[in-house]
C-alpha cells in the first residue's frame, strides 16, 4: 500500500445504506486505486468495480457530484474540493475511509 503520489493505493470507501443495498455490498469496500488517490480516481475505481453505482454518486453526463451527496475524507467534508485534489494521506493510505454520505434532508 502506498500513499498519495505513489503508483497505486488501497482506499477504504464507506457507502450509505441505500447504495450498499443497491449494490449488495457491506458498509465499507476496499478499492485498488491507480495513481494518486483523489475524489475522481476513487470514484472512477468504485464505478469500474461496481458498475451498478454509475450515476448514483456522480452525474452520468458531467461526472459532477450529485447535489444531495457529500464526501468526507476521514472527518473532513471535502464535498466542494476539486475532484482532482489529492485526498489526505490518512485516507490515501487506508487508515481512514473516504465516506460517501447522503445529505441530511427531510422526508
Amino acid at each position: 500500500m502506498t500513499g498519495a503520489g505513489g503508483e497505486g493505493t488501497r482506499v477504504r470507501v464507506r457507502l450509505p445504506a441505500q447504495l450498499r443495498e443497491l449494490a449488495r455490498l457491506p458498509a465499507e469496500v476496499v478499492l485498488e486505486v491507480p495513481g494518486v488517490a483523489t475524489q475522481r480516481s476513487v470514484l472512477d475505481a468504485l464505478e469500474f468495480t461496481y458498475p451498478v453505482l454509475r450515476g448514483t454518486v456522480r452525474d452520468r453526463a458531467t461526472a459532477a457530484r450529485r447535489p444531495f451527496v457529500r464526501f468526507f475524507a476521514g472527518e473532513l467534508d471535502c464535498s466542494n474540493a476539486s475532484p482532482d485534489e489529492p485526498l489526505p494521506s490518512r485516507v490515501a493510505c487506508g487508515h481512514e475511509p473516504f465516506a460517501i454520505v447522503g445529505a441530511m434532508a427531510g422526508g
Partner: protein
Amino acid sequence: MLVGTRKGAFVLTSGAKRDRWDVSGPHFGGWEVYHVAGSPVDPDRIWASQTSSWFGQVVQRSDDGGSTWQPVGNDFSYDGEPGTHLWYDGSPRPWSFTRIWHLEPSLGDATTVWAGAQDAALFRSADGGSTWRELTGLRRHPSGPGWQPGAGGLCLHTVLLHPQDPSRLLVAISAAGVFTSRDGGETWAAANRGLRSEGVLADPDAEVGHCVHKVVAHPSAPEVLYMQKHWDVMRSDDWGASWYEVSGDLPSDFGFAIAVHAHEPSTVYVVPIKSDSEHYPPEGRLRVYRSRTGGGDWEPLTQGLPQAHCYVNVLRDAMAVDSLDPCGVYFGTTGGQVYASADAGDTWTAVARDLPAVLSVEAQVLP
C-alpha cells in the same frame, strides 16, 4: 397488483376471486418507485423505476414475477446537445434528466420497453433494459424549446402503444400536451386540437402547453382515447387528431387518474379531485365516477370508499384494471391505501391501508 410508492414497491397478490390479498415488500425500501409494470408477453418480467433525489435513477428488472430483482442500465443520456426548454419563470433552462416516470413494456417483445423521462424525453431499450436510446425526434419537435414544466416537473408520463400498428405511438407530457408518431417514434406531431386551458395559457387553444395528466385507451378500440387533463375530462375518437370534452356532470373535472374497463370500451373511470390548489376529493368524500357512455354521463361509486373526512389524492399512474370478468378496478392514494373492486367498481375494499403514498398501480392476471 404492482404498486409503486414514495418509499418502495409492493406486490399484492390474490386468487381469481380477488377477496384476499397478500402484500410483499417493500422492494427497494426507502427509494421512490414511480412505476412498476409487467410485460404483457411474459408476466414474470417486471420493470420498476427506482429513483431518489439523493442517488438518482435505477431501473430494476425481475424475471420471476417480482420475487427477485436485478438492476439494469440507468444511462439515460440525452442525445447530442440537449438544448433548452422553458423554466417556470419563462427563462430558458437546459434539458436535464431527473427520473423515469413511466415504463411501458412492448406489446409483442419481452425485451423491449419504453421509458418516459423528466425532463420530458422518450427512451427505448431493446435489450432487456441494459442500454437505452433516446427517441430524439420528440424532444426536438419545433415546440420543444417552449415546453414548460407542470408542478411535478416537465415529465413524460404516458406512453401508449397502438395494439394494431407498432409504428404508432402516443405520449403525453406535463405541461406540453399530447404528441403522436406514425414511424415508431422517430418523428412526432402535436395532437392537442380541441384542448382548452383557460386561465393557464395565454392562448387557451394553443397547439402545445396543455397540462395533460393521463391518457388511456381500450385495446379493442385504440382510436378512442380518454384524457384526464389538469381541468377537463376529454375524449378523442381519432387517436388524438381532435378532442372534445366529456366532463359532463362530474362534481369536479380536475383530477389525475383515468382508466377504461377491460371489456367495455365505453366504460371509463375517473377520481374527481376538488381543484388544482386543493388536491383532495370534493367534500372530503372519496368517489370513483364511472361513465358507461364514453363520458358525459357519470355515476358516483362510493360503496366501501370513505365518505367523510377523506383528503387524499389519487395520482396519474395510480389506477388500473385487470382483465378478469367481472373487471377488477384498483387505485392507490397518497394516504397509502390501495382500494380494489372485483365487480367493475360497484363495491370497493381497502386491501392495504398504511403503505407509503402510492405513486402507481398496475394489475396483472397471471396464467
